[in-house]
């Protein structure tokens, strides 16, 4: 089914909450895309980066393509607008913001479980409304599992991406300040790091989520707070090394201000660490979320939640295996792709090899 073009809003309605939400979400997606485009542009201009990414591409074509697919699916699920299209199941959908993906799967719901490519329901053998249309079967509510799985891509990227976007700048800020200015600032940051790092992250996560309430954002913030320490430590150490580099001395003898030195000489030389950390952190975050989901404080619609929901279904006889399989494979696929890319990136961008090449 091809989605109809954006209609903005259902005419007789005022600017509704869903419409506003759709607009905000689209704006965020737009901003992210612009940011991505800018990032790609600056990478293309910078030989070192361009070369690095070319090498990664040469070594890891399949994972990169797979990751691209995930991103594409997430985008499909991110561009939303309010307006009817397709055969609606219910009237609420008509004034809800729905994504391209939602529209592609509108009107595919069954009554309950059905196996992949089945023609009849799993339990009562009644005919399906859309026989052979569910490559991954349907879940207990009759929703297409392929649809639910695809929707999970956005959530996973959100968890990994948003959290990293929160944690990495934070870590970079504290780590660089501590490493560059030393003394009191360093003492304070180092103490803060040690304090946070000595609490088991899962307990800290739980406590934070309980304190902030359960929402996608608060899960991301909590994950960010618990995962920034490692990178902060790394960037602090690296900054301390960089601070003693001759080019920093040169800059100081040229009267360059501290802020400028940090921005021009320190941070750019940490960027490879940022990229590597981002990629390696990503998979850790998505895995953590799966555990949180099992504890009932994860993000709605995540694969972790699907697995947690589906594990009981495995104990049915005969077992409902396609839910957990779909979510598990989707999760595994994303993480494998990301880990392989991260691996290659680390090899390519590792500071040692960088210096040797120079």
């Amino acid at each position: 089914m091809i989605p109809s073009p954006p209609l903005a809003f259902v005419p007789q309605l005022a600017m509704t909450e869903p419409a506003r939400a759709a607009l905000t979400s689209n704006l965020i997606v737009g901003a992210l895309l612009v940011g991505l485009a800018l990032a790609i542009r600056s990478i293309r201009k910078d030989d070192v980066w361009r070369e690095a990414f070319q090498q990664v591409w040469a070594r890891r074509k399949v994972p990169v393509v797979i990751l691209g697919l995930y991103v594409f699916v997430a985008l499909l699920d991110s561009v939303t607008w309010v307006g009817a299209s397709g055969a609606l199941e219910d009237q609420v959908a008509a004034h809800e913001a729905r994504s391209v993906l939602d529209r592609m799967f509108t009107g595919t719901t069954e009554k309950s479980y059905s196996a992949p490519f089945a023609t009849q329901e799993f339990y009562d053998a009644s005919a399906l409304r859309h026989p052979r249309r569910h490559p991954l079967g349907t879940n207990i509510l009759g929703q297409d599992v392929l649809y639910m799985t695809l929707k999970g891509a956005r959530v996973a990227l959100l968890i990994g991406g948003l959290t990293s976007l929160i944690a990495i700048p934070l870590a970079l800020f504290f780590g660089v300040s501590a490493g560059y200015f030393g003394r009191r600032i360093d003492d304070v940051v180092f103490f803060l790091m040690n304090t946070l790092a000595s609490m088991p992250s899962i307990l800290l996560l739980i406590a934070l989520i309980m304190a902030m309430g359960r929402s996608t954002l608060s899960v991301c913030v909590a994950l960010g707070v618990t995962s920034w320490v490692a990178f902060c430590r790394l960037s602090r150490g690296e900054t301390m090394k960089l601070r003693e580099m001759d080019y920093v001395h040169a800059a100081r003898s040229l009267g360059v201000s501290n802020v400028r030195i940090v921005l021009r000489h320190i941070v750019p030389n940490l960027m490879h660490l940022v990229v590597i950390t981002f990629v390696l952190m990503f998979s850790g975050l998505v895995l953590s979320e799966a555990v949180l989901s099992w504890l009932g404080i994860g993000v709605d619609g995540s694969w972790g939640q699907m697995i947690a929901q589906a594990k009981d279904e495995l104990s049915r006889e005969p077992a409902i295996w396609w839910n957990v399989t779909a979510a598990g494979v989707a999760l595994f696929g994303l993480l494998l792709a990301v880990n392989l890319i991260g691996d290659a990136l680390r090899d390519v961008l590792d500071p040692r090899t960088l210096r040797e090449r120079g």
Partner: protein
Amino acid sequence: MSRPTRREETAAGAGVTEAGASAERGTEGAQAEDVLLRVRDLRTWFPIRKGLLRKVVGHVRAVDGVSFDVRAGQTLALVGESGCGKTTVGRSLLRLVPVAGGSVHFRGRDLLALPEQELRPVRRSLQMVFQDPMTSLNPRMRVRDLVAEGLQSFGIGANEAERTERVAEVLRRVRLSPDHMRRFPHEFSGGQRQRIGIARALAVEPELIICDEAVSALDVSIQAQVLNLLGELQADLGLAYLFITHDLSVVRYLAHEVAVMYLGQIVEHGPTEPLFALPKHPYTQGLLAAVPSADPSARRVAVRVLGDVPSPADPPPGCRFHTRCPERFEPCDKRMPEPYPVGDPAAGETAEGRYARCFLYEP
């Protein structure tokens, strides 16, 4: 190529203009002579912390009471073994490391007493070229930005285009093609990189360049090129150099005056030729004896320097060198020798500017 005069420059340079003037235009400042940089009793100590409360229990006396002058348009070489504190002297002058005491007068203004804000304009006249051209050039910046950084910092040039033009000029001056501006440091050879480093220092039109082992990391053939370049620049622009090195052959080639450092102190100081011809301090003698000479007839009596360098954290009492000195005698481990004038008029030398820190020459 004409060098723009200071008058054309922007407000940022005003402080410099007021404080002193360029060597060519004679003296206007407090210093009547042509002394550009006057260092007196410079001390740079690094604290050693120990124990429960990290109390300062002592200091590494990296630089301990160093005094010298650098004259405009001239080269002073600071020589010594590694670890003697010569690099720290260079960094102390630019206040890249915290200084414990003494004074550094540049054109009559004490750099150590200036607050960072007022120091900034002075920095322009005082530049540095580093030993390792790889670590001294930010690998993430293009040549153009590297060289233009000082211009930007001091507000030289009205706009980016003008600055790029200046960068091109400076690059040509150090014999690099302006076409290389868009490249990254790792695309250059070691000698080229060092030229970039020189260009960066040169771009802000300093009066004094501190060359910290500027050629030590280079191949001998390249060394010569860079040294020639430095010589030319001095001739053309009237630059003064403080040349920090352990390589005595370089010193002889380049320097007008030499100061020999040992364990944080200058042990001998004097004009290059006489000092090389007739070293006075036993340490200098030992140092020179270790240099292989191309002329077998000029072979001197080998002076043996014994043992290892003591730790600057715990320097020996009395003369710093007495633990290794072959000529050690009674007062050496009791008192600290002063710098005694050692000019030997008999040998046709003037006493001026020649002294050694050794009891052999105690009057």
